[in-house]
């Protein structure tokens, strides 16, 4: 299946074409190039997925890993070398499908959404760059390739968040996203170095083979601050994952990243890039499970806390994209928890399947929510809920597709979110009851704040709209309808037949007791939201005033941003950076300047030797020989 390398290369080519053509291309041409490139990638991914899952992948009842294409890039030793390649296994193939589908929808949608924007070509160039990087990340054959593309994804996300570079908020947000994730990536890099130092390889296949026996044997020893090498390495690796996937306390960049264009938020900050952390943990899952099970417990609790924490904040946000951002954090945390509670093989590995399943369904319904929100923003020219209300009459398609997505994320059957959420709850139930209760609570809150959002946009009293709100153009609502269809249908895929922790297909039914509990909690959330927000009233404010302190803190995102600012500005800048800056300016710069002025003076002093007279040259030549000879014989 060597052709699969073109899935990655075509967007790269399009990036070069659009990027180098830049303003010489018409905006239309740039858009068409980008969209065509992604279509090719998408079709190739579907073919790859079909052939992998139904023909070539399944060998003797196990989905095998296929290295479809590979080239050695940097060689350190026979075992330790960095390759660039395409690895096909169930999760990477699944990710290929998700990324190309959502990216294609976003490409089409952006035609309408970004119409007339300055830098339309630049926008499409960056979209292609992002698609290339993300695809390269998921098919990485080794952890170093993944790291390279991981950074590329971060860079393209930075470029796209700061797309409106004349807006100070966008610049600040892009910097924040870059610095926070980069800080987390430092942990990732150190983790990679520890792992490769101990095991002597970067290759995923070698690392995870035989229940990660290589890592278990080579990283078991050693102890630093009471923790083993493996625990340190895997914790640092998780730090990178937490940065990209916005886990507490590294989640602070994601809400601000909503300053980017909305389709970008749909693609990068909802469906694809932010799940890279989950993907990384899934990719290294055998290492976590066998070499560092304590880190897996850490992941479970960090995930559970983040899920609850973000869901509570989401209730109090008034910017519709921020609500969705916190809901994304909360849902990704769900996936992390599912990985954390998973075991290996068959039903013990239910969490692994559930996590990937939720990643899959979430990508579509969350992209749909974002694109729907984009279409609303496009119509009313504001992100604030205050400016919206009663829009269901003006925007019927957006309304219905948004409702489907809300039902899906709330976990109401038969929409896709129900199936994946049920599996996660069931996995959590069989592993840890406390986590299960937290997740159940989060499910209720999720239903509540999603329907709060829904009612405040589409119901309630109409505002004084300056221009009549209108339904989005067809290039925008076709992706909505398509994604809505996917949100209805993807839940019915028997996911455990394709993806499992040990690559052996198995049957996984719905646990109806837990499902009933989940549905009940969600319905309570929806009913509460309906009661409070369907018609405008002062009831929500009255309830909020009951615990004013708590709800205010939630509105301010529990002051985590301020805590970070305190740590960086007051502690790191003042106590560490200032002395270093002084040392740099006075000692290092001083030495270099001294070197410069010294050389310059010396150069002035001896330039007379180069006189231009050939007699001198000859004399120097001969004397040179003689002096050398004398020196050689003396010493």
């Amino acid at each position, binding site marked *: 299946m060597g052709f699969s390398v073109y899935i990655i290369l075509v967007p790269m080519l399009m990036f070069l074409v659009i990027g180098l053509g830049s303003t010489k291309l018409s905006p239309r041409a740039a858009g068409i190039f980008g969209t065509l490139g992604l279509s090719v990638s998408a079709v190739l991914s579907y073919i790859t997925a079909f052939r992998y899952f139904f023909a070539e992948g399944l060998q003797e009842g196990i989905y095998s890993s296929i290295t479809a294409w590979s080239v050695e*890039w*940097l*060689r350190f030793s026979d075992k330790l070398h960095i390759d660039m390649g395409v690895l096909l296994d169930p999760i990477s193939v699944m990710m290929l499908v998700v990324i190309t589908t959502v990216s294609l929808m976003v490409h089409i949608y952006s035609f309408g959404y970004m119409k007339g924007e300055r830098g339309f070509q630049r926008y499409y160039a960056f979209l292609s760059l992002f698609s290339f990087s993300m695809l390269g990340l998921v098919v990485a054959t080794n952890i170093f390739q993944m790291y390279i593309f991981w950074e590329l994804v971060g860079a393209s996300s930075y470029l796209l968040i700061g797309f409106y570079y004349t807006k100070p908020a966008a610049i600040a947000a892009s910097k924040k996203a870059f610095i926070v994730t980069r800080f987390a990536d430092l942990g990732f890099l150190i983790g990679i170095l520890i792992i490769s130092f101990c095991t002597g390889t970067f290759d995923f296949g070698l690392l995870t083979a035989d229940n990660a026996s290589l890592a278990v044997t080579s990283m078991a020893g050693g102890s630093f601050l009471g923790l083993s090498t493996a625990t340190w390495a895997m914790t640092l690796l998780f730090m990178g994952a937490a940065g990209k996937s916005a886990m507490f306390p590294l989640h602070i960049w994601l809400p601000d990243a909503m300053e980017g264009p909305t389709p970008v938020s749909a693609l990068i900050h909802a469906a694809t890039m932010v799940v890279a952390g989950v993907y990384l943990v899934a990719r290294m899952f055998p290492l976590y499970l066998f070499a560092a099970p304590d880190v897996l417990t850490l992941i479970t609790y960090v995930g559970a806390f983040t899920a609850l924490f973000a869901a509570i904040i989401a209730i109090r946000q008034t910017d519709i994209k921020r609500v969705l951002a916190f809901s994304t954090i909360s849902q990704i945390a769900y996936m992390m928890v599912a990985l954390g509670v998973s075991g290996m093989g068959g039903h013990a590995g239910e969490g692994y399947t559930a996590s990937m399943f939720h990643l899959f369904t979430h990508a579509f319904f969350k992209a749909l929510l974002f694109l729907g929100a984009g279409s609303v923003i496009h119509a009313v020219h504001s992100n604030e809920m205050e400016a919206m209300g009663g829009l269901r009459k003006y925007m019927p398609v957006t309304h219905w597709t948004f409702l489907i997505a809300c039902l899906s994320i709330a976990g109401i059957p038969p929409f896709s979110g129900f199936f994946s959420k049920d599996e996660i709850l069931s996995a959590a139930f069989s592993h840890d009851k406390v986590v299960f209760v937290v997740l159940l609570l989060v499910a209720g809150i999720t239903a509540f704040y999603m329907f709060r959002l829904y009612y405040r946009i589409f119901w309630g009293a109409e505002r004084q709209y300056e221009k009549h709100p209108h339904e989005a153009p067809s290039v925008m609502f076709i992706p909505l309808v398509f994604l809505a269809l996917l949100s209805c249908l993807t839940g019915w895929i028997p996911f455990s037949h394709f993806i499992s922790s040990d690559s052996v297909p198995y049957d996984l039914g719905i646990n109806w007791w837990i499902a009933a509990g989940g549905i009940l909690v969600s319905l309570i959330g929806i009913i509460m939201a309906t009661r409070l927000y369907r018609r405008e009233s002062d009831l929500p404010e009255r309830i909020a005033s009951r615990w004013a302190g708590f709800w205010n803190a939630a509105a301010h995102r529990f002051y985590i941003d301020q805590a970070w600012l305190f740590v960086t500005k007051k502690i790191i800048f003042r106590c560490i950076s200032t002395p270093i800056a002084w040392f740099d300016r006075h000692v290092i710069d001083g030495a*270099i300047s001294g*070197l*410069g002025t010294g*050389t*310059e003076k*010396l*150069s*002035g002093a*001896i*330039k007379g030797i*180069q006189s*231009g007279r*050939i007699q*001198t*040259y*000859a004399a*120097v*030549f*001969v*004397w*040179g*020989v003689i002096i*050398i*000879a004398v*020196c*050689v*014989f003396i*010493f």
Partner: protein
Amino acid sequence: MDLSNFLMMRQELGLVAVFAVLLIYDIFGGETRAMRWFRPLAITLFAIHTLAGFICPMPEGEAFGGMYVNSQLTVLMKNLLNLGVLLVFMQAGEWLRQEGTAIREGEYYVITLATLLGMYLMVSAANFMLLYIGIEMASLPAACLAAYNKYREKSAEAGAKYILMSTLSSGVMMFGLSYLYGAMGTMYFTDMAPLVRFDYMTVLGFIFFFAGLAFKISLVPFHMWAPDVYEGAPTATTAYLSVVSKAAGCFALLLTLHHVFGAIGQVWYYMLWALTVLTIIIGNIFAIRQQDIKRFFAYSSISQAGYIMLGVLHGTETGLTAVIYYLLVYMFSNMAAFGVIASVENKTERTDIAAYNGLYKTNPRLALVMMLAVFSLAGIPPLGGFFSKFFIFASAAAEGDYLLVFIALVNTVISLYYYLRIVKAMFIDSPEAGIGVRLRTDGYNSVSLVLCTVGIIAVGLVSNVYGYINGVGF
């Protein structure tokens, strides 16, 4: 004599064939219209020759009783020289069609090829006699090239200085060779190697011989000719001397030092160590003050020669790879710089650095190429120059020569200072003193600049290049 010996010399024969065709064409073409096709023909033929060197399998072994040796390494080295000459040819065209030189356009190519043949022999020699003949073949016609603009005083001066100094160095070298022959009774590398030992005659002979080669590479204190010749000679010749000729000299030095004089390594190690330090420092210090860009690059290439010696010193496998890699990158970088200098000089007759003020405003592409070239020479990542410096420093550090690496590193910082002068002139200084016109480079030169740029960027990033060179053993 066994004629099959000649089959060993495929590359030399190919070169002679190109040489002969061009010579005959030039003689009979005279001043007719047919001469219009001379340049495309010359470049095409030579390009084919270059390509053939890379593609065709070359025989390995020795010929003519062991005088001549061909191995993968020598083939690689000749390919490198070919590439350099091809770039020089591409850049020379515009200058050659100017009034003062147009009549003798053909001779230029023929003479250059003659010197190249000499360098082939330098590379493949396994006998001091052949090596000496090669050096002479490479040097004497080079003086013609330096004096090519014969109506221009500076060019004539450059030619005169070059031939005088070259004669002197040849004389000293021949004198040294006679000592060596007297001491050991043979001129063959392989026969001589076991006989080399520390006695006055051998060591004195060696030092004299070394001085001759050091002259070609322009190591301090045998470098004095370089700035004057580089400044006065036509730019194409300067490029040729600073890149191709230097590369051949470095290679011959590397081979003889380790293959023949390995036994007195103690002697030449400290000698070369000291000269390396001197070369780097003096090249740098003088470069800072230059106002003429060709003189500037003369000193820059003197200090670059010093860096190359870091790899030559130890003669390890990694050192050898690093040297060849360095030469490759250095060739691309320097040729890019000289390509830009040539296009500026051809149109405006200016070679002062002030001419480059504000070049970015008038000729952004040329300024960009120049910037990449000097960044690469200064060793800024991710350009090829960074990797070549890295490998060559690493090869010296691997042998524990930390002091030398440290000195070289400090000098890299200094070199950055003067290389950035050019960048500053192009991008920051006000364009008043600059050339102020938009230049049109001809097609060949543009192609050569693109090739150089690709080379500067790609050689560093594509690891296969290093792997390929590494695969070719001693």
